[in-house]
């Protein structure tokens, strides 16, 4: 195995381990930490795939933004019930879910396995600049659309999460 193969294996194991820990750990905070591990591993994977800009964005958006958002969510809704045993979920449903997800994964793997594309150096030079150029020319419409989407999400989040004044006065 080449050195890059070893690196990939380590990253992959970290990512999967983080994912598994996230769904097996009991405490919500521990889960969040496991999640950060996965997000960082994925960012490292992007670096391996020479997608530095995406990797940085991954770290900023996921490991930074979304994680903090989630932590805030946990804090704001902190409740003793959160540590109640996870076993209450019907084990039958867990089994069905597990079987379905496993089937899905295995079949998908067999269909994905024949993909034997070889890697090519897609772009020599500054990725970030190239991305920026494409984003502002070819993809200007979805880009603007995303800005509206973020605006909507902003308005929506404020609207839903804020307390109405009347209520606050009571």
């Amino acid at each position, binding site marked *: 195995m080449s050195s890059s193969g070893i690196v990939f294996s380590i990253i992959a194991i970290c990512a999967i381990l983080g994912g598994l820990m996230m769904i097996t750990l009991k405490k919500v905070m521990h889960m969040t930490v496991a999640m950060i591990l996965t997000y960082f591993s994925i960012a490292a994977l992007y670096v391996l795939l020479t997608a530095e800009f995406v990797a940085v964005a991954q770290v900023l958006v996921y490991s930074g933004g979304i994680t903090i958002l989630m932590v805030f969510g946990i804090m704001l809704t902190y409740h003793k019930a959160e540590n109640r045993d996870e076993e209450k979920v019907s084990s039958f449903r867990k089994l069905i879910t597990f079987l379905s997800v496993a089937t899905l994964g295995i079949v998908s793997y067999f269909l994905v396995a024949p993909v034997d594309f070889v890697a090519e150096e897609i772009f020599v030079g500054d990725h970030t600049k190239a991305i920026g150029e494409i984003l502002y020319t*070819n993809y200007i*419409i979805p880009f603007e*659309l995303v800005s509206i*989407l973020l605006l909507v999400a902003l308005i*929506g989040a404020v609207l839903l999460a804020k307390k109405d004044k009347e209520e606050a006065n009571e």
Partner: protein
Amino acid sequence: MDLQTLLSFHWDTMMPEFIILISATVLSLIDLFIGRSFSRKFFGWASFIAVVAALVSLISLSDHGVTTILNNSYVFDSFSIVFKAILLIGTALVILMAISDKFENIEEVKSEYFYLLMTGLLGAMFMSSSGDLITLFIGLELLSISSYILVAIRKENSKSNEAAMKYIINGSIASAILLFGLSYIYGLTGSTDLAAVQQIVSTLSGTELSGLLGLSFLFIIVGFTFKIAAAPFHMWAPDVYQGASTPVAAFLSVVSKSAGFIIIIRVLLNIYAGAYSPDGQLPLLINMQNYIFTISAITIILGNAVALMQTNIKRMFAYSSVAHAGYILVPLAAVSPLLFENIWFYLLAYTVTNIGAFAVIQYVVSDENNENIEAFRGLYKRKRSMAIALLFFLISLAGIPGTVGFIAKLQIIASALANNPINITIVVIMILGTLVSYFYYFRVIAEMFFKGDRLELQPPKNEIPFNLIVVIGVCVAATIVLGLMPNLALDNFYKLFS
């Protein structure tokens, strides 16, 4: 690419989108800056006017010819015109409904309501007018996120919160599944431009990669069934319709569902009709027909059977709308050659009848403060016009001759059978489903016309608001006129496609 090239595109074809975008933005800014005490009553009418203006500009553009902007990011063709028209009509009617929406006697309608409806509409319009997977996906998400917030907008109400929670979690799972499928499409073709994708997939014949292409089909179709509320991703619909306010439920069941069908047609036909199946024989779409068939059959059976059990009128309509999604999938399952017009006309029919029905429901439910079917008891004696209007909508939904619903069903059945007699199976399921639907539609009719003691009935507390009169009037007229003279609509359709 320089500014010159950018400006050389026919941006004027985006006029309807610009109108919606600008008015939504302006309204949100006004909402931000005017004082709290300032009445926001005019928001509804303003946004209604904006949507109508967009519709007018769309019609005025109708002979513009096919235009694409920036590698199919935006496509202006006959397909997008006719389907956008449905979205605009649907949203205009929903906005009119929303103007007088009341909940637990809170008079003031939330101002956010209107610009969120408009941004949702904007997303839906991009879904019908884009030939690029990224834009389509963003459009879908814009519609979804606006809808999530709209469902949650009655935030004092725990039912509404719960409905929104169900909606967003199921929706996010569905869009993750969809996105996973789309990523394979990108992977196999190296492009997100549907025209390019279409070209490349046809070269994939016989290779092992077409197995993966089929897999992506399953991911994508299952992801989309969420948006159209078809099995297996239909279960959110009843809970969400019940929890959401009535205009929002109407929006979800009509505009959002239509947008779902539009994107299904766009994506599936473009990608899979030209691709080869793993055995290298038929177009992949024919090969995958059985899955659409199964989805359609389960949806029809389940939607109708469970609707029988309902006592809440909005839940009943939710299941009925699930069943209708099943009917609209029939042309896809049958791969009938008249797929576009069948689906288009059915969506048009469904839009006018279902919004009309929801408008009546909104009035009765808020007047009685009761969402159960009993709220309609003796409506014929209490408010005759409402009962008669709802009667028309119900018989149109049930597909009884003389109404637009009948023509729509007839077209689907006739063209499915004309294409291939083997489709009789799905047609029979559809007809039997319709038969079952008579039972629950007629339960409401019986409740309105046959039940209720004259002496016990209370006259309605509120007059019918003007905006609802407009909505119901338009819908009744469309239901009957298009039922008798469907060519009024179909001729326009053909004119654009010829």
